[in-house]
């Protein structure tokens, strides 16, 4: 479960179907597939025909199989899924509703792509499912380290030991990482699994 009380992190209120949307674009990893299925059980039969679904990464997507979506594409990674999504958004018109379910990094990167294509961030329907692993941006070298599950974590770009701060940027879709031993160089606490 996500720790509440971190004020700069967005809320993920859950997938709610938009019956009026002319086109529904749904992005989900295997953790989020269940959220998609839950949503589809709330709508009538022809909703699926207005849905384009992007499945991200490996895992079990059986929950999504019963539904007759207009298109279903699978991408091996978040980065490749975002490429596909960008292509859909470039042709998108008002009346398109975007949904994303899965890890926070997936949600963050989908919302980031949405905003870059003119969609208001709070128009995207989001639901967190699965791991609480984070993306972390090193404030020093500006590099992003993916799939962070420990605190502190080593920056994948400059090697600095980073304290993962509970401060989130929607623009970077990442939490801030700051050098943990700046006040006492070399004194790096043991990494603890914090975001599983």
């Amino acid at each position, binding site marked *: 479960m996500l720790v509440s009380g971190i004020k700069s992190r967005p809320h993920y209120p859950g997938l709610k179907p*938009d019956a009026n*949307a*002319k086109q529904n674009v749904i992005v989900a990893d295997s953790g989020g597939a269940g959220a998609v299925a839950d949503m589809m059980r709330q709508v009538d039969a022809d909703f699926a025909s207005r849905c384009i679904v992007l499945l991200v990464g490996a895992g079990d997507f059986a929950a999504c199989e019963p539904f007759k979506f207009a298109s279903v594409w699978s991408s091996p990674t978040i980065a490749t899924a975002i490429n596909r999504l960008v292509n859909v*958004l470039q042709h998108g*018109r008002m*009346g*398109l509703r975007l949904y994303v379910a899965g890890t926070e990094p997936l949600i963050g990167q989908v919302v980031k792509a949405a905003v870059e294509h*003119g969609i*208001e961030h709070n128009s995207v329907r989001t639901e967190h499912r699965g791991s609480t692993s984070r993306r972390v941006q090193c404030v020093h070298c500006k590099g992003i380290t993916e799939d962070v599950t420990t605190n502190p974590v080593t920056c994948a770009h400059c090697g600095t030991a980073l304290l993962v701060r509970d401060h989130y940027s929607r623009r970077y879709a990442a939490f801030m990482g700051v050098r943990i031993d700046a006040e006492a160089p070399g004194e790096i606490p043991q990494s603890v699994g914090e975001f599983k």
Partner: protein
Amino acid sequence: MTANMQRVRVARVDDVAAGIKRFELVGLAGQSLPMFSAGSHIVVTMRDKDQVWRNPYSIMGVSEDNGYVISVHSSPESRGGSRYMHTKVHVGSELDISEPVNLFPIVHTGRKHILIAGGIGITPMLAMLDELKRDASIFELHYAVRSPEAGAYFSDLMSETGRSIRVYSSDRGERIPLAAILSNQPLGTHVYVCGPQRMIDWALEVADRAGWPEENVHCERFSSAPPGKPFDVELRNGTVVHVGEHQSMLEALEHAGVDAPYLCRGGACGQCVTRVIASDSKLVHNDHYLTDEEKQAGEQIATCVSRADGGCIKLDL
């Protein structure tokens, strides 16, 4: 609690259409008036013997001598302020106006802007057109009038080049084809609606059915306080203020010398929301600020437009 006031002189008055007059206001002491963002309005204070009216009017633009241009529609339902502007205000008249306040701004992150105006609702749109053109933004304006004669600025707008401005005359059977307009817009388009209540309700409904998220739909409701049953307001110190049928609660309070807070005077901004201590009758909420739950709870009221259904309410004022 109130806005900064400026004293202005009416430099020009024109009849623009049936029931609509255009006024140019300049600083009385020759002072230049503050710059404003499109969508802003000013609250004009009008005094006639012991009557005082304060009405919000959208700033349409800047006049040649750097004054404000506003339009006033005087209708039979007017509580007196608009009628006063039409009958008693001439070139040379002096008025007090507030600083510009903007409750209907252009969304700067929008990629395209669609303006939908009905009747006098064209006034903020004219300022928006200036700003959108200045910023080289992509826009469309769709303006519904009863007839070319009744439509203010119809001929000015018709002479605008380009396909981005369309005027629809209802007595020729023309209607804004809003569903069609909204059906094929790029992501990041925002729509802005200003006009009579009915038109706004219709536009919001059409946008919703077209699958537009609420975040992209904006409206300025030109609500002036609707009339209602007379009622009484009791203040904390026991004074009882009587609110007449055609008087807003805020106006009655001001008339009684109470320095009640306000800003937009149109039920939109929440500045006038006051705690209700007790009420022996139903509250009539006419504002767009309180949530449905807050309105149900009956513990707060927007004094500028809302009322009680007769009886007496006690306010924390």
